[in-house]
């Protein structure tokens, strides 16, 4: 049984169907990526998995438990963390308060303190500015904070939505190498990215989404060498 199973998922905004019946699975310990252009339905898929949107139809199963109809604030406690598109850190709270909120449902004070230290080890800049309002951080630093915050719930599945969006090439590299470190440490990740090259090089499996459907699936390697993918998403003619 896979950690996450999505079966024929359909999501609509009013009458407009953004996700038109997709199925995929994520096995424990692997990195799965959804790639595709803007408006393909990738973010909608993640927002539905974390409970912010209600599916029109289909089945979502996490560790054998159905997720349909479970409130967003309860899904976190089941082990699914979501670092949303655009980072969405709490701008007027301090960096440390943002991290503490990531552990909102945990009661183990010592464990939380240890995980905050880990986050500072991983991203030293966050530790240096721990008392500063998170809104004063640069885009890349905010992305580090968003990822650190999502990890604070000790998730079984980490969902990252466009972690490299709007970042400088150097910062993008830093974020991507953090993701591969997390992968090496055994974290299960569902990654949505527009930077297909970087995402597919990291991923065990990938799915190409186009206007609400999955049009192509394969291992990261296979997709990276697929001609149509290279043409459409890797900028080759």
């Amino acid at each position, binding site marked *: 049984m896979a950690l996450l199973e999505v079966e024929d998922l359909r999501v609509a905004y009013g009458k407009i169907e953004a996700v038109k019946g997709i199925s995929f699975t994520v096995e424990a310990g692997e990195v799965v990526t959804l790639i595709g252009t803007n408006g393909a339905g990738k973010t909608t898929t993640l927002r539905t998995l*974390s*409970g*912010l949107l209600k599916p029109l139809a289909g089945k979502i199963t996490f560790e054998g438990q159905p997720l349909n109809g479970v*409130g*967003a*604030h*309860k899904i*976190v*406690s089941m082990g699914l*963390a*979501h670092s*949303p598109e655009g980072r*969405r850190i*709490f*701008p*007027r*709270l301090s960096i440390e*308060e943002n991290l*503490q*909120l*990531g552990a*909102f*449902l945990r009661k183990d004070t010592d464990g939380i303190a240890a995980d905050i230290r880990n986050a500072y080890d991983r991203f030293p800049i966050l530790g240096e500015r721990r008392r500063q309002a998170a*809104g004063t951080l640069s885009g890349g630093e905010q992305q580090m904070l968003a990822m650190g*915050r999502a990890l604070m*719930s000790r998730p079984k599945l980490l969902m990252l939505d466009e972690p490299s969006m709007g970042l400088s090439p150097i910062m993008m590299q830093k974020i991507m190498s953090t993701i591969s470190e997390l992968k090496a440490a055994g974290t299960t990740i569902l990654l949505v990215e527009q930077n297909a090259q970087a995402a597919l090089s990291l991923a065990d499996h990938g799915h190409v989404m186009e206007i609400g459907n999955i049009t192509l699936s394969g291992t990261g390697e296979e997709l990276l060498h697929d001609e149509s993918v290279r043409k459409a998403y890797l900028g080759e003619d």
Partner: protein
Amino acid sequence: MHGLPDQLANGLALGALYGLIAIGYTMVYGIVQLINFAHGEIFMIGGFGALTAYLWLPDGTGLALALPLMILLGVVSAVLVAVGAERFAYRPLRGGPRLSPLITAIGLSLALQQAVWAFYPDAKKARPFPQIGGADLDLGFVTLSREDLFIFVSAPICMLALGLFVAKTRTGRAMQATSQDPDTAKLMGINTDRIIVMAFAIGAAFAAVAAIAQGFKTGEVNFRMGFIAGLKAFTAAVLGGIGNIYGAMVGGLVLGVAEAMATAYIGDIPGLEQFGGGSWKDVWAFILLILVLLLRPQGILGERLADRA
């Protein structure tokens, strides 16, 4: 009560009262972007709740003994009505057009006024409120009326408690997170519905305390008392920067002092004699609001709207 320090004390008492009510507008707005126009009526119901508690007690019960019970029943009745309004009037409309809850709030405000008018015994006219009584307190540099003592003690306690709650507790932090970004707050595991209920409840409790203060000040409660008090408190919330709890109190104090000063001194300015006295005080309050909106639209302590991404 004519010297400058006395007028200042008078204005601060009035302002603290506006500030306590304004907290309710600002907290609800900060979290759900709703101007709860029924908040003035929540305040009024708090006043009637306190009066009810007083009437239940045997005749001749001292006010010192009665006051805790009056506060308790005032707060409980205001909180129940506010939480009920949130649950049954506002929550079903959440996520819909912004105008729907606003119109609902106006309707609810009228309905609550009429309900008290129709069902509370003898509420068709003003009902006398128990009085603190006794001579003014002469502190040397300033004279305080005994009625104002209640607000001078209760407002700082309320503000201090709220400030500590929001800044230091886990739930307070969840409240800040919810007001900054409700969807992401849910992703942290915060039950935002519960946070919203809490914002309504805290606002209602503070309004009930303010209603008791006003009851002492004016010697009565009536079913219409929420209208002007609510309008003034809303002004205070906007003045201070809506969404900011300290702004609400600062806005209230500025408004109260401005009103007291204008009432006391504008009539002394040559050429403006006919504008002196209490009957013009609401005009000065709203002129102040218009000035602030023109010169500093985000309010005294407000954040620039650009910060609210």
